[in-house]
């Protein structure tokens, strides 16, 4: 690299020059090994794999034009650690340090493919060499995740090479703040945090509001259990979030930005801090950005763990260092009276990451990606009982079936599909007959769920829907801030009733009481949390009422989940006294010895089912029963 030739960034045009410079010097570095270092792959050993590549390449001293870099999350976390290797970008899955010498010798030196590390289609047994061939990726359209997995998130030059900051340069040199706002309005971009409020209108009301200081807050408090797309964007492409914020600041007339990140995301905080420092060094943040006289600075505020802080007024309170209490009704809009009483635009991570491509490619292009009223794409965190878990980005209007079966590959172990939960604790469970619903804000709401921030949890027949409702209400009653009586006490009561039902103490009128409480909590709460937390209960009663009835009247859990309603038994005539379950039982509840048929001490058994999973299928000696049989 020849730093003296590298263009300095002084004007908007320099961004373009720098990009061309970086691209021109690229050919010497094409033989890359990109190891995914997102949270998922790191947990599976990504860092060790990257180090092993460095070591092995140095040791085999093969060529000098190989560069090992880390990339952000590729979204296919299930198959991590992922390494994309060589000129041909071969996509290797589940790479371990032991595989590295072989990859270096075969792929980097001999230019061959290591077949066994390629992704294998479980249906056909075919192996895919490239990312684009894998059905998981083939059926996606990646806009928000455009750079995730392709750039090094800790290197701003990599972002610039991939067209980063072009939108900012265009904004500052060619567009007036009004034009930026009208472009965003025209694009039809709606808030990706869940509520779907038109982003352009939000910006416009902040621009028109008067205040000595205005703020842009990026909501990175992804509190919904089961959602991790914002984390991946912050970790894998932090600069795009910053760029979106700077553009928003310019449009609104704000000079200060805050990114509120939850404390559970240490890597996101680290990558964002690095990104802010690098952007500041290049003059893309700070005073007089690109010589245009526009000032903007960004600081990170670390959350302290409260789900309710995803609500706009509560988040503002938290940034101010107070308890995250949603403000009482009637409350002014945050875009007019927000942080420190000043106009504040509060946008979600994903929303902001959409901004640069919209500015660059135009409102029409974005609008064409989705459906009428639902423009663009949406990222979902696909998890649960689905074959391909990970991040999925699809155009709005794609059906749930396409996402779960087309991209997700269907249900694991080929069990029967039962429901899909969208929108986390504020969402609902959608049954199979509604799988052809298009993913749109309105259609999901009509089905009793919500778009939410993008969690999408697939559940198979081994999931008990009453237990799911109980799970969400347990979460809700823990996270209720306590201001509204109906939310504080109502969620508690609903949880207690659901607990009773799942533990065999259900009463005949429980369903009626639950429905009454759900309505009251929804109506009697001032913020989105209280208004939506009854959704998981309402939707499960609506679509799976018979399961509630079985629990209440027959004390039976058909999914064999509710501990108090099931018991594990060893069929004496099938038991070969092999000691496997006896050794595996985490609480030593299996009694017996070698040559002596085993038995489960029901008083000790925690009903975890470990014994059943370790019992060899050919013996099949352990059964799980519920209802009348369990009480025998």
């Amino acid at each position, binding site marked *: 690299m020849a730093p003296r030739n590298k263009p300095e960034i002084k004007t908007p045009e320099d961004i373009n020059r720098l990009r061309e410079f970086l691209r021109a010097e690229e050919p010497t570095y094409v033989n890359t090994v990109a190891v995914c270092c997102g*949270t*998922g792959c*790191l*947990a*599976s050993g990504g860092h060790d794999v990257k180090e092993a590549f460095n070591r092995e390449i140095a040791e085999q001293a093969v060529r000098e034009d190989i560069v090992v870099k880390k990339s952000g999350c590729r979204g296919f*976390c*299930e198959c*991590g650690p992922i390494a994309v290797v060589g000129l041909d970008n071969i996509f290797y899955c589940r790479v371990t340090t032991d595989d590295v010498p072989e990859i270096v010798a075969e792929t980097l030196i001999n230019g061959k493919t290591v077949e066994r590390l390629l992704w294998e289609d479980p249906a056909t047994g075919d192996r895919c060499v490239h990312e684009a061939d894998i059905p998981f990726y083939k059926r996606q359209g990646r806009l928000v995740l455009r750079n995730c997995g392709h750039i090094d998130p800790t290197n701003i030059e990599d972002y610039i090479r991939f067209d980063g900051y072009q939108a900012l340069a265009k904004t500052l040199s060619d567009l007036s703040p009004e034009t930026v706002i009208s472009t965003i309005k025209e694009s039809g971009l709606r808030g990706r945090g869940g509520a779907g409020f038109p982003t352009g209108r939000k910006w416009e009301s902040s621009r028109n509001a008067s205040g000595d200081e205005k703020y842009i807050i990026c909501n990175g408090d*992804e*509190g*919904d*259990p*089961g*959602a*991790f797309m914002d*984390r991946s964007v912050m970790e894998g492409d932090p600069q795009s979030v910053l760029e979106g914020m700077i553009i928003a600041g310019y449009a609104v007339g704000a000079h200060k930005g805050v990114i509120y990140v939850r*404390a*559970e*995301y240490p890597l996101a905080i680290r990558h964002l801090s690095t990104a802010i420092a690098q952007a500041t060094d290049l003059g893309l943040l700070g005073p007089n950005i690109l010589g245009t006289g526009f000032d903007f600075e960004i600081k990170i*505020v*670390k*959350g*302290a*763990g*409260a*789900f309710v802080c995803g609500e706009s007024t509560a988040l503002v309170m*938290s*940034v*101010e*260092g*107070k*308890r*995250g209490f949603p403000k009482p009704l009637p409350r002014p809009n945050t875009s007019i009276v927000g942080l*420190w009483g000043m106009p504040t635009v509060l946008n979600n991570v994903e929303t902001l990451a959409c901004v640069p491509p919209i500015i660059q490619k135009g409102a029409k292009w974005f609008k064409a990606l989705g459906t009428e009223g639902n423009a663009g794409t949406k990222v979902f*965190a*696909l*998890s*649960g*009982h689905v074959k391909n*878990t*990970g*991040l999925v980005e699809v155009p709005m209007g794609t059906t749930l079936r396409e996402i779960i079966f087309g991209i997700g590959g269907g249900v694991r172990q080929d069990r029967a599909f039962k429901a899909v*939960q969208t929108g*986390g604790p504020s969402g609902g469970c959608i049954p199979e007959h509604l799988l052809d619903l298009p993913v749109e804000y309105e259609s999901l709401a009509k089905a009793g769920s919500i778009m939410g921030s993008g*969690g999408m*949890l697939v559940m198979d027949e081994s*999931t008990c829907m009453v237990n799911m409702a109980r*799970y*969400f209400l347990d*979460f809700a009653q823990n*996270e209720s*801030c306590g201001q509204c009586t109906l939310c504080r006490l109502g969620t508690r009561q609903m949880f207690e009733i659901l607990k009773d039902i799942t533990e065999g103490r259900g009463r005949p009128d429980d369903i009626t009481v639950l429905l009454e409480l759900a309505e009251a909590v929804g109506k009697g709460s001032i913020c989105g949390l209280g208004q939506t937390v009854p959704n998981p209960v309402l939707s499960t009663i609506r679509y799976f009422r018979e399961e509630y009835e079985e629990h209440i009247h027959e004390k039976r859990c058909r999914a064999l989940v509710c501990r108090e309603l099931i018991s594990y038994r060893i069929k004496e005539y099938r038991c070969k006294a092999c000691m496997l379950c006896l050794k*595996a039982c*985490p*609480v*030593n509840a299996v009694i017996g010895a070698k040559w002596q048929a085993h038995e489960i001490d029901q008083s000790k058994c*925690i009903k*975890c*089912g*470990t014994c059943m999973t370790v019992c060899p299928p050919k013996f099949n000696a352990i059964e799980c029963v519920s209802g009348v049989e369990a009480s025998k």
Partner: protein
Amino acid sequence: MPEAPLRKILEVFQGRKGALIAILQRVQEEYGYLPQEALAEIAASLKLPASHVFSVATFYARFYLKRRGDHVVRVCQGTACHVRGARNIMETAEHRLGIKTGETTEDYRYSLERVACMGSCALAPIMMVDDTMHVHMTTKRVTEIFADAKNEGKKES
């Protein structure tokens, strides 16, 4: 409680608007939890009622008012982990460590906590021991990880 680090933190944040949460976070980083004396001193320094500082410290899940163990074990109870058996992981950990969720072992070696979601749902169920994330957890692996923990599972042999 040594007071010097607290004084230093308070000095750094002197006069900064809305810094209470950030101060509490720094103090907790320093001491491992929020000692009562520290809360009183923070209140005095910020000229806030002690009740206000206490209310903030108790509102957020990530603040701890009691000393915690040298190793913090966090079992994720997010939705994806829940449907893949997080409860079994939690209960096995409780059994192995001989404590309930939210408690600390007597020798201050381990604290056991539940977290709502760690955002690694694709690899559920998840358990974290300090900064190490264990993915695709099974009850068997919990037993292995805590093989040397105090409560040895009381094998009756």
